[in-house]
């Protein structure tokens, strides 16, 4: 027991001894379990960002540690606390899931490091509980869902059938959709996260004959839904979605996903120079099409780079002031931070399509919201 502890301590001190001068950055993401694929996109996207800058950020060497949160909040807290105590940490990048963010927020900001979330965008920290040391490079969680709501309203769809998993993010998603949808919600269904079969929801859709379907079914749920929806022969009712058909699930969904819509802030075919460079370099190195998770993590690396450059070092307050100006060229085109350190950006409707090389990706169809500010920002007093 003592020996085991000693051995761990030794290996950890050895690892700590190898660190060079420069930026100390921890990436925390879910890298094991069924949800690992999203965490891998975050890790790879951030690394791709560093690679694009010649292996340095703001001219400084990067001492990067990747931490697996296992999607267990208490495990995440233990690991991140241990990491924070191993020396002065400048940035913690992560996590994928809101439940982990709620757990690690206090330890990270309390230790004097910046927490930058490349995916989770809790409403809690966007409003009253906003923090000087938290930056979010993705979106506030409600926003991508409200894109679909706005689009459904714009199209004049009168009756909507909406589905999400039965957990906090799922309930937030449907609230987000309804916040901009003016028509009638004929049914609001919550499915268990571990549910394999969505046939009963699909049968309900067929019976209700809505004008439009909106789903937030991340990961395996979405894969099951897409396959089963097409298998049920439903072709005429359009499906709007968030995180249901994206680059992390498209390889498993296959051609069944073609034609599904997705509300998003980015897609691989977005037409700007920074994005083309990112997508090409990413696919060359990692052999898969990047999704929003990777794109936002890539942007995060560029943000850190720009901030260190502008601040001329790693002074905490100077870094914050620099970051607030978002000194980088985002793969999304326009990007700035609002008063609550959440992004102000455009949102689009994307559609799944097949590329000439046979791979599937989401492609931008239409801009739905311009320079959208989340609804909680007004409550933030920093």
């Amino acid at each position: 027991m003592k020996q085991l502890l000693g051995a761990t301590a030794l290996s950890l001190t050895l690892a700590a001894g190898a660190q060079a001068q420069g930026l100390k950055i921890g990436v925390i993401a879910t890298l094991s379990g069924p949800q690992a694929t999203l965490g891998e996109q975050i890790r790879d996207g951030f690394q791709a960002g560093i690679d694009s800058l010649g292996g340095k950020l703001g001219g400084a060497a990067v001492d990067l540690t990747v931490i697996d949160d296992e999607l267990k909040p208490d495990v995440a807290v233990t690991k991140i606390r241990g990491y924070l105590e191993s020396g002065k940490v400048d940035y913690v990048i992560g996590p994928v899931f809101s439940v982990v963010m709620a757990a690690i927020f206090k330890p990270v900001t309390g230790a004097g490091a910046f927490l930058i979330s490349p995916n989770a965008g809790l409403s809690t920290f966007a409003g009253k509980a906003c923090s000087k040391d938290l930056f979010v490079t993705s979106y506030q969680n409600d926003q991508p869902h409200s894109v679909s709501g706005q689009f459904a309203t714009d199209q004049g769809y009168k009756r909507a059938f909406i589905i999400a998993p039965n957990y906090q993010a799922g309930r937030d998603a449907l609230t987000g959709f309804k916040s901009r949808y003016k028509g009638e919600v004929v049914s609001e269904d919550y499915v268990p996260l571990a549910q394999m079969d969505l046939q009963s929801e699909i049968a309900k859709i067929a019976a209700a004959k809505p004008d439009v379907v909106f789903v937030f079914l991340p990961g395996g749920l979405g894969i099951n839904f897409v396959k089963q929806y097409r298998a049920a022969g439903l072709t005429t009712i359009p499906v709007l979605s968030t995180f249901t058909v994206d680059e992390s699930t498209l390889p498993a969904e296959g051609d069944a996903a073609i034609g599904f819509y997705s509300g998003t802030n980015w897609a691989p075919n977005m037409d700007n120079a920074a994005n083309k460079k990112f997508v090409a370099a990413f696919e060359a190195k990692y052999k898969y099409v990047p999704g929003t998770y990777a794109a936002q993590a890539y942007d995060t690396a560029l943000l850190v780079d720009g901030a260190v450059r502008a601040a001329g070092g790693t002074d905490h307050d100077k870094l914050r002031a620099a970051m607030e100006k978002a000194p980088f060229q985002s793969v999304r085109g326009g990007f700035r931070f609002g008063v609550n350190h959440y992004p102000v950006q455009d949102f689009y409707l994307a559609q799944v399509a097949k590329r000439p090389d046979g791979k599937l990706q989401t492609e931008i169809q239409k801009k739905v919201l311009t320079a959208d500010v989340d609804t909680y920002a007004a409550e933030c007093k920093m």
Partner: protein
Amino acid sequence: MKFVVPVAIFVALALIPLLAAVGVHVPGIVTLIASRVMIFALAAMSLDLIMGIGGLPSFGHAAPVAIGAYAVAVCDAAGVQAAAAVIPAALAAAGLFALATGAVALRTRGVNFIMITLAFAQMVYFATGSLADYGGDDGYTLSARTTVFGLDLLDAKRIYLTTLVVLIAVYVLLRVIAASRFGRALAAIRQNRGRVQALGIDAFAIELAALVIAAMIAALAGVLMANQAEFVSPAYAAWGRSGELMVMVILGGLGTLHGAVIGAAIVVLAEEGLGAVTQHWPLVLGPFLVLAVLFFRHGIVGGARR
């Protein structure tokens, strides 16, 4: 001779703060992981009372741990941090839970007991997930840690020592229980229930009492776990957690009590220590568990003793 291993374990755990006190640099992660080990050990030891000594294999022991943790969250939301309120609430809630579910579960034996305890734990899991006021599935971040008579015995610096003291106290308590008339009756029921009942002893009452005691100790572990992470979530009651607790006890050696501490150390070190080095840690722990079963017939402690 009998107490060499347990004493060595507790001395080793006490060494960490001692070394720090005399100025040796102990990396923070070591203290953190060691305190996680002790919290899991506490829960695993209580499981050992019913599973190892009593022969009642519960696959739902994460439930009372989660109930203890949620007691902290509920008190915290009401603005109460005093241990004098939090701990009795946690123990009472977990004890009542064990009393009600145990009365039903004890009708079954063997694998059916494993499954019915799992069923009750799953109910706790889904119920905590629907508690909107305490974050639902996202969990609840504590606004402040529990205080003991106004002292911050559970803050980041002191929680290690507090947990160690609790662990040793509970170990001694469980040893006393195991050696008592009650404990010997419990062990006798495991070996031959019919014969014990023929002696006029109410086996059902003894088993139920053991379930309640174990649940209360597990709830205490839950209180510590909530304070250590400053966070509570339904994941504490997930069936994987119940499985981990079973693994800790069986791996360490059923019925030994201190074996549960060693089992907890191995599992936590693999997951959170080795997990910091490689994400493929299950490829190390998995084969290790298989080999441990094949080569140590009575768990690590039991195997070493023979």
